[in-house]
């Protein structure tokens, strides 16, 4: 608790334009060390939470509760969960701005990789359960169906980010790494478009996804993004 309040003091005195890296550096090494076990626990917790949907749906299939077409059940649920993971990943930057808690930045790579894992599982479900692993058909379907082309493009973007998510790639790519990982924005748009082409008769669910995606983008507009740390300062200055 003491640590939290000390950190908040720092940010109150800080000019809003100052980068968050300076705050991060201002956290003392000893404090970081003290928090390490907690952060490890946090990462494990995120891992467990991200795995839960997949585990739950697999259990439902194993128990025979997934209906007469378990492959399609997995396909559709995992497809939606891919968007959940993408949203979670994209919410980390606004959350960090809002709270200055470094725990959010620490799980960015993990959630990004979870997004990739869910997307790959989604494609595997399609190839295995819808096409029956008829690889020639997989090829022709990918070429012919616009919504599948869009889905594959989004997956390609995720793969590119996934394979360059390690420390070595970050060092190698330097400044270009950040530019490359802006791919996440087109991936979000493509993912929502892919989903849009699948739903037909009722747009309610899709609208919720699109609104969530739009909100995450709005929070990145410089005008809005600048307000996030101020919002936090304002709430903290307010007397309890």
């Amino acid at each position, binding site marked *: 608790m003491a640590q939290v309040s000390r950190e908040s003091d720092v940010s109150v005195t800080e000019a809003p334009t100052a980068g968050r890296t300076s705050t991060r550096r201002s956290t003392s090494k000893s404090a970081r060390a003290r928090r390490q076990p907690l952060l490890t626990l946090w990462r494990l917790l995120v891992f467990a939470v991200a795995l839960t949907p997949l585990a739950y749906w697999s259990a439902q299939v194993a128990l025979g509760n997934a209906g*007469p077409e378990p*492959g399609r059940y997995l396909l559709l649920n995992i497809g939606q969960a891919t968007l959940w993971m993408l949203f979670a990943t994209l919410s980390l930057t606004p959350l960090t701005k809002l709270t200055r808690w470094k725990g959010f930045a620490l799980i960015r790579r993990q959630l990004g990789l979870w997004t990739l894992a869910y997307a790959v599982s989604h494609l595997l479900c399609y190839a295995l359960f819808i096409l029956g692993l*008829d690889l020639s058909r997989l090829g022709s379907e990918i070429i012919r*169906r616009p*919504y599948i082309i869009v889905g594959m493009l989004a997956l390609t973007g995720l793969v590119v980010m996934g394979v360059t998510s390690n420390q070595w790639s970050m060092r190698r790519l330097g400044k270009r790494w950040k530019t490359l990982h802006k791919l996440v924005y087109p991936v979000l748009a493509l993912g929502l478009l892919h989903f849009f*082409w*699948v739903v037909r*008769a009722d747009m309610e669910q899709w609208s919720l996804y699109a609104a969530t995606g739009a909100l995450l983008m709005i929070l990145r507009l410089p005008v809005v993004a600048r307000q996030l740390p101020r919002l936090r300062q304002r709430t903290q200055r307010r007397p309890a």
Partner: protein
Amino acid sequence: MLIKITRPSDLRESDVTPESVYLTRRRFMGGLAGIGAGLALTGRARAATADYADVPAGSPPDWLAPKLADAEPRVVAPADPELDKLTPFDDASNYNNFYEFGTGKSDPSRRADRLETQPWSVVIDGEVNNGGRFALEDLVTPSRVEERIYRLRCVEAWSMVIPWLGISLGDVIQRADPTSRAKYVRFETLVRPEQMPGQDSSFALIDWPYVEGLRLDEAMHPLAILGVGMYGRELPNQNGAPFRLVVPWKYGFKSIKSIVRISLVEQPPVNSWQAIAPNEYGFYANVNPNVDHPRWSQATERRLPNSLFSPNIIDTRMFNGYEEEVGSLYAGMDLTKQY
């Protein structure tokens, strides 16, 4: 009465009751209305329920129970019962597209029990001499209920095999006495948002009521029936109770559910799916492995139930395997354009 099915490849002729026998039986039943009929019915009832021992008993209205029990069994049945095994009732009644109750496959079975199906009336209007509003009982009672085991091919590329109980659509239309101007039949589903939550969604793209249509000669085809039951019992609500269309050679969405209006019309009606996405869903919607849905192939289908280890993918057949019976209806048409 025109139970005259042309040389079917996969439907045994022997499964079809000869018209003469059928008519004799009817006269016989009529003559014995009362004690004799009552006795015959009890025997039937036992026979019918024995076929579907594991299917939960329904609670049909008093007028329907004897009609179901007296149904002519297996008037149409698959030629290869091994290939076309009956889908378990549990799957057929829990995996449904009935967007009036939501877009999820399990939404209808979870939500449809609040639908009131008694009393039920159907308006027959348009180009008919004998139109009006009819109690369902009065529409169904004059016809013999028949069991028809049909393949059901959904446009989403999955399929089931379902034992329907229904009456001839042609019979009902003939009794309405269409005028010479009648060229098409338009069907309409109930609109009752307080019992059909899907109709309450402000994001729904379907302009309720759900509408379907057939050309008059399609509607008069002996394979087209109006369903009142399945698996030896009345229809569960999620399967389109109490009165639905079943046209087995067309994609499932043509077989409109919970019908409240049948209109004989001059112009082709615009069916709901065609109205939403005309490039994906046409008026005819005949099962056709050679014409893909823009988003997926129609060459194969997943026969349900399946499992992760065996997706049970089989080849889709022209007109869902009823080509010999219905192919002549479409002679000379370009089915890639008239999809």
